[in-house]
Every structure is written in structure tokens, then in C-alpha cells.
């Protein structure tokens, strides 16, 4: 850089000659230099400011553009960081307790049409009519030639049908992917599984929603993406369910019954291993709900859960158990059974005349209405109510079925002393077989309340204690005697090696307009096995059974439901892994009586 001297010699000498102050030149030069420096600095500062401004502008431009881009673009999953588990079906499978599939999904296609894109609508309609015989060709032709833009033709296609439609070669016929539900076992466990339907439908997909049974009850859980497609494990066992249905079907046919239901339940955990209701249906092709007043004629009706019946003498054991629990009686106490027992204009009778008095055990074994009514009188209405409430007879069952939410037991509007007496032998209170199963499980497991469930549990689920262990044990001994004693009402139910205990119940069917039928009954057998160490409760209910046996027409449970239940136990107990065993010789009841 060339520096301009502050005191240039020529000008200084010149100024000195003229007598001027040479310092003025220096000051002038300093001033000029300062001005020069100032200008340069200003320019540089301005340039820097400009540069900074441009850079800020660019930075904000980039940020703004990025924000705008992010806001305007479709959200996208991070490409590199997904694990494969997210690629799953929209609805979880349902499996049984051993992992066998009860319900799964299938990919299929739906068929829809864009009539405005059709080239030969009439030919397409005719050929579609050949592929799907149930389509109305005339209607299809009319709609294909109308000015509609879109119409559904089929919701589900099989691969063969899809190929056939494809071969028509009509560009206006289009396929959309569609997931459908498949129940590979057909009608097995139909009432538990329920059925499915389509919710919101689009061309590219459709929502699969449950319409009944556990599919509806657990709909949200099955569709929850957070579960990542983990299957819903039921407590049912497919083998046992199928065997139960087959045996029950055979029994229903032999006993000429209109319908039948059975429940097999684990007494400790409340897990339902088999729940059958006949007649049944195929959930893959669920029939339409029945029209009319009586839903129970439809195969969709789940008799085991929805059917609210008076369950008859099966209730007697609850009166006996409670009386023993309260210490009013013990199994050997004699009860007056002289009949008929009059209460107002109502008379309580026994099926046969059993004499003047019977022990509590004998009242149960011979199923004496009068004896049980006497026990109920001793217990009293308030205590009976409280006990039955704890057994679960006052509310709907908590089982995971949509239908169970509506199956509320029918209680007498006014719980009089007469109600107390009739309810003790199962009349005047209607409940579903599932309620009965849960209550019998309580007696069988030593007195703990049981919540029936269809979901697999990890072990025993001990509820509140309802009954003392001593009373439960004595009740079990009575139930065993009902079956093992030659005079017992369920003597056909003795399956060798499984120590079956149980109680029969035959209730007249109520007429829809009040009163009872003389010739129509509901026969129920509630059984527990093996009774020295109960593991399972089996309830069998037959609707209007009739059989000619030993020379006369029989309707009572001892002749109808009991043999069916015995056959079921013989068939199911080995499948449950129970070896036939010789029961302990000394019965608990005998020991208690002697004390």
C-alpha cells in the first residue's frame, strides 16, 4: 500500500517560503486520510451487513421452505427404522388354549363396477349372471346402462370367481383388495365366536368388525394396532369343544329335544373349556337374525348364555349348602317332608311321596321340594337373597360375550316367603346355564366365588369366599350321592372312574302368555367331577326332551339330561387328561355325619 506522507517535503518547503504554518498541511492531510479511512470502513461495514442480511434471508428461506414442505407433504413412516412386526393383518386372530386357530383373516377381493367405463355393459351383465347365479341380470343390465359412476357387485370373491370375472375382459369391472374373516372349523364354537361384518367400506379396504359373540365383545382389543397382531387366546379347547358338540348333538337327537346347551368349566379358574348351544350355525355364513317374538327359535340364539330358564331342582343344593354353612343343619339332620306343604293357596308337592321325614342328604338325593322349602324357611328370605347374589344369580355374567350383557336373570318382583321357598327348588328365579355353572363351580372349588371367563387364565382365580370349606365339602358329598346312590335321581350319570357328582333339575316350560306347559320341560343336569377333588363342572340342558324308556314316556332330567351328561363326561374327561381312578373309599359326607 502506498502511503501518502503527512508532511510532503515539497509542500512544506513551499509553505515555509510563503511563511505559512506547515502544520496546517499535516492536519489537512490527516483529515483527508481519516476521511478516506472512514469511507472505506463504511463501505466494508455496509457490505458485511448486506452479506449478513442475505445469509439470514437464505437461512430463513430454507427453514420456511422445509416447514412448508413438511406441513404440505403426506406423513410417511421412517423408512429405515421400522421392524417387520408392523406388517400385520388389521384384525388379530382368535386361537384356542392350545394355539389352534379359531378365527383368522384371509385376503380376498371385492368386485365393483364403473358403468361409465364399460364397453359392453349388457354382455358383462350376462356373463356376471353366469358366474354368480344369484345376481339379478335384468337389474344389473339396467344399472350398468344407467349414468351411475360406481356400484358394488360382490363384497367377497373366491380366487376362481375372480379369474372368471377377469376373463370377461370388461375394463369397467374392477377388483379391490379386501380382508375377510375365516372360521376354519365351521360351526364349531359358533356361538362363542359370533360373526363378523364390514364396517366402513372403501374400494381399497374395508373395516372388518365383529357383529356378535366374542368378536363383538373384544372388537376394540382385536383391532388394537398396539397389540401388533398378537392373537386373542381363548380358554376353549377345540378338541373338547368339538367332542362336546358332537355328543350333545347325538344326545339331543336321541332325546328328541328341540335344543340343547352344555358348558364345561374349570372350577378353580372359571375358564370355560367348552360352550355348546344347539342348533348352531356356520359363522362364515351367519344367518340373518330371526324375526318375530321368540328369538330362541333362531340358531343364533345361545342357549347356554342367553337362555334364561327356571333351572329346577339343580338349585336345591344351594339351599342345603347355605343351611349347612349357617350351621342350621348338618347332613344328617332330619327334615319334615309331610306334604303337600300349603302356603296361602299355593301347594308345594313332591314328585313322589317320600314319607314323613328325611335327612338333609336324602332330601337332596331324592330331590324333595318340600324338604328344600323347609330348609329355605329356616334360612329366611334375606339370607337366601344375599347368598344367591354372591353366587352371581342377581346380575349378568361377566363372560366375554356380547349376548351375555343382555341375559339378566329374572327375579321375583317381590321376594316373599313363598318366593324363598319356591326359589330354593329352582322355581321363580330364572337364570342362564352359565350362571348355574359358575354357582356349581363355587360349591365345587371349596366355596370361592367364580367369574366365568372365555379368556385363558394363568391359574386358579380365587374370588371372595361364599361358602365355608366344610359346607362345600358336605355339599359335594351329597352331590356324589345323588349319582352314586341307587335311589338318587341321577343314577344313570355314574361314569366309572370319574366319581361324578351332580344334581338333576326338571322345570316345566313357561307359556309365553303365563302359566306352564304340562308336557314341555327343560331338563338340566349340573355335574361336578371328580367329586373327591373337583376339577370341572359340566352343565347339560335339554329343551323339551322326550324319550320312551322303561315302558313310559320320560321327560325328567334323570332320564334325559343325565345319560347325555354321562356320555359327555366319558368322552371329555379322557381328553381333559383325567385318568379314571378309584375314588377314595371314605366319603367326606359320612365322616362329617358321624362327627
Amino acid at each position: 500500500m502506498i502511503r501518502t506522507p503527512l508532511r510532503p517535503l515539497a509542500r512544506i518547503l513551499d509553505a515555509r517560503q510563503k511563511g505559512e504554518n506547515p502544520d496546517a498541511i499535516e492536519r489537512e492531510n490527516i483529515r483527508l486520510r481519516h476521511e478516506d479511512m472512514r469511507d472505506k470502513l463504511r463501505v466494508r461495514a455496509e457490505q458485511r451487513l448486506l452479506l449478513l442480511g442475505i445469509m439470514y434471508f437464505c437461512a430463513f428461506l430454507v427453514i420456511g421452505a422445509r416447514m412448508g414442505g413438511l406441513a404440505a407433504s403426506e406423513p410417511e413412516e421412517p423408512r429405515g427404522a421400522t421392524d417387520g412386526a408392523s406388517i400385520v393383518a388389521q384384525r388379530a386372530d382368535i386361537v384356542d388354549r392350545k394355539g389352534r386357530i379359531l378365527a383368522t383373516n384371509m385376503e380376498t377381493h371385492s368386485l365393483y363396477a364403473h358403468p361409465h367405463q364399460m364397453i359392453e355393459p349388457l354382455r358383462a351383465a350376462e356373463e356376471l349372471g353366469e358366474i354368480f347365479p344369484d345376481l339379478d341380470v335384468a337389474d344389473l343390465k339396467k344399472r350398468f346402462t344407467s349414468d351411475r359412476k360406481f356400484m358394488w357387485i360382490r363384497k367377497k370373491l373366491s380366487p376362481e370367481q375372480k379369474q372368471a370375472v377377469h376373463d370377461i375382459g370388461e375394463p369397467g369391472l374392477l377388483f379391490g383388495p379386501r380382508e375377510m374373516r375365516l372360521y376354519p372349523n365351521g360351526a364349531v364354537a359358533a356361538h362363542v365366536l359370533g360373526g363378523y361384518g364390514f364396517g366402513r367400506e372403501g374400494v381399497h379396504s374395508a373395516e372388518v368388525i365383529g357383529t356378535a359373540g366374542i368378536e363383538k365383545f373384544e372388537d376394540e382389543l382385536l383391532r388394537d394396532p398396539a397389540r401388533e397382531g398378537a392373537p386373542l387366546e381363548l380358554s376353549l379347547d377345540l378338541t373338547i369343544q368339538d367332542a362336546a358338540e358332537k355328543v350333545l348333538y347325538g344326545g339331543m337327537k336321541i332325546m328328541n329335544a328341540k335344543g340343547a346347551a352344555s358348558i364345561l368349566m374349570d372350577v378353580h379358574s372359571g375358564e370355560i373349556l367348552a360352550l355348546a348351544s344347539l342348533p348352531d350355525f356356520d359363522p362364515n355364513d351367519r344367518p340373518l337374525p330371526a324375526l318375530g317374538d321368540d328369538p330362541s327359535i333362531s340358531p343364533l340364539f345361545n342357549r347356554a348364555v342367553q337362555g334364561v330358564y327356571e333351572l329346577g331342582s339343580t338349585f336345591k343344593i344351594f339351599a342345603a349348602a347355605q343351611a349347612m354353612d349357617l350351621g342350621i343343619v348338618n347332613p344328617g339332620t332330619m327334615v319334615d317332608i309331610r306334604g303337600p306343604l300349603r302356603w296361602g293357596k299355593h301347594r308345594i308337592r313332591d314328585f313322589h311321596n317320600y314319607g314323613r321325614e328325611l335327612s338333609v342328604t336324602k332330601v337332596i338325593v331324592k330331590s324333595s321340594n318340600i324338604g328344600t322349602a323347609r330348609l329355605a324357611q329356616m334360612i329366611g328370605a334375606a339370607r337366601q337373597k344375599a347368598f344367591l347374589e354372591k353366587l352371581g344369580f342377581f346380575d349378568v355374567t361377566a363372560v366375554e360375550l356380547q349376548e351375555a350383557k343382555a341375559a339378566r336373570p329374572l327375579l321375583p318382583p317381590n321376594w316373599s316367603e313363598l318366593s324363598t321357598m319356591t326359589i330354593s327348588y329352582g322355581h321363580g328365579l330364572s337364570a342362564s346355564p352359565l350362571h348355574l355353572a359358575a354357582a356349581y363351580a363355587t360349591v365345587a372349588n371349596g366355596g370361592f366365588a367364580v367369574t366365568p371367563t372365555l379368556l385363558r387364565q394363568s391359574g386358579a382365580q380365587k374370588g371372595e369366599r361364599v361358602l365355608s370349606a366344610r359346607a362345600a365339602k358336605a355339599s359335594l358329598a351329597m352331590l356324589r350321592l345323588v349319582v352314586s346312590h341307587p335311589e338318587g335321581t341321577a343314577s344313570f350319570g355314574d361314569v366309572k372312574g370319574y366319581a361324578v357328582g351332580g344334581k338333576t333339575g326338571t322345570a316345566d316350560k313357561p307359556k309365553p302368555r303365563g302359566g306352564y306347559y304340562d308336557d314341555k320341560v327343560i331338563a338340566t343336569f349340573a355335574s361336578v367331577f371328580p367329586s373327591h377333588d373337583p376339577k370341572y363342572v359340566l352343565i347339560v340342558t335339554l329343551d323339551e326332551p322326550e324319550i320312551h324308556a322303561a315302558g313310559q314316556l320320560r321327560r325328567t332330567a334323570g332320564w334325559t339330561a343325565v345319560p347325555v351328561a354321562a356320555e359327555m363326561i366319558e368322552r371329555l374327561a379322557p381328553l381333559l387328561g383325567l385318568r379314571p381312578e378309584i375314588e377314595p373309599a371314605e366319603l367326606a359326607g359320612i365322616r362329617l355325619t358321624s362327627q
Partner: protein
Amino acid sequence: MRSFLYIMTTLAVIGLAFWAYHENYKTQEAIERTERLQREIGAARSRLSVLKAEWAYLNRPDRLRDLAELNFDRLGLLPLRPAHFGNVDQVSFPVIDPDGLDPITNSVPVSSQGEEP
């Protein structure tokens, strides 16, 4: 010295840029591969679910029962009954037919712990 530093810095920048470029391409390739694999996994899963459904359909109790009845002569399968439980001592020890045995060809010497036969 100074210019050497400049040259080295420039070279380093070029080198790093080259490396970053390569890494970028490798990342994109990896992402594409994962996407392809995920598509394959998705396809495999749907195939698997179809196969599972088919397996469950072929193993449905109705069909198995029919098959067991059809092939009763060969298989002799019956529904399980209480009488079918047995004890281990009821199972007869397999009878070895001495004539049907193959001769020992490749014998292996084993220690008899000093005991002579």
C-alpha cells in the same frame, strides 16, 4: 508452508465430500434394501397367514373325524375313552428277533473298567 496448509485443507475437504457422497449413496441403498425386505416380509407374512388358515381348515375336527373313519382299516383310530388309559407295565417289552438283527459290523471298543468278561 502456508500454501501447503491451504492445499492440504482443500484436499481434506474434497476427500470428506467424496466420503460423504459415498456414505449417502450407501445409506440410500441400505434403505432401499430394507424396504424391499419389508415388502418381502409383508408378502411372506400374508402367505404364512394363508397357509396357517389352510392348515387350520385341513385340520378342522369334522374333516379329521371323517378321515379317521375312512381310514379305520389302516389306522384303527377311535375316540379316546376312559378304558384306553393303561399303565406302563401293560406295555409289552419289544421282542427282539435274534435272526432279524443285522450283524455288528463297525464295533467300537469300550472300557470295561478293568473287568474281564
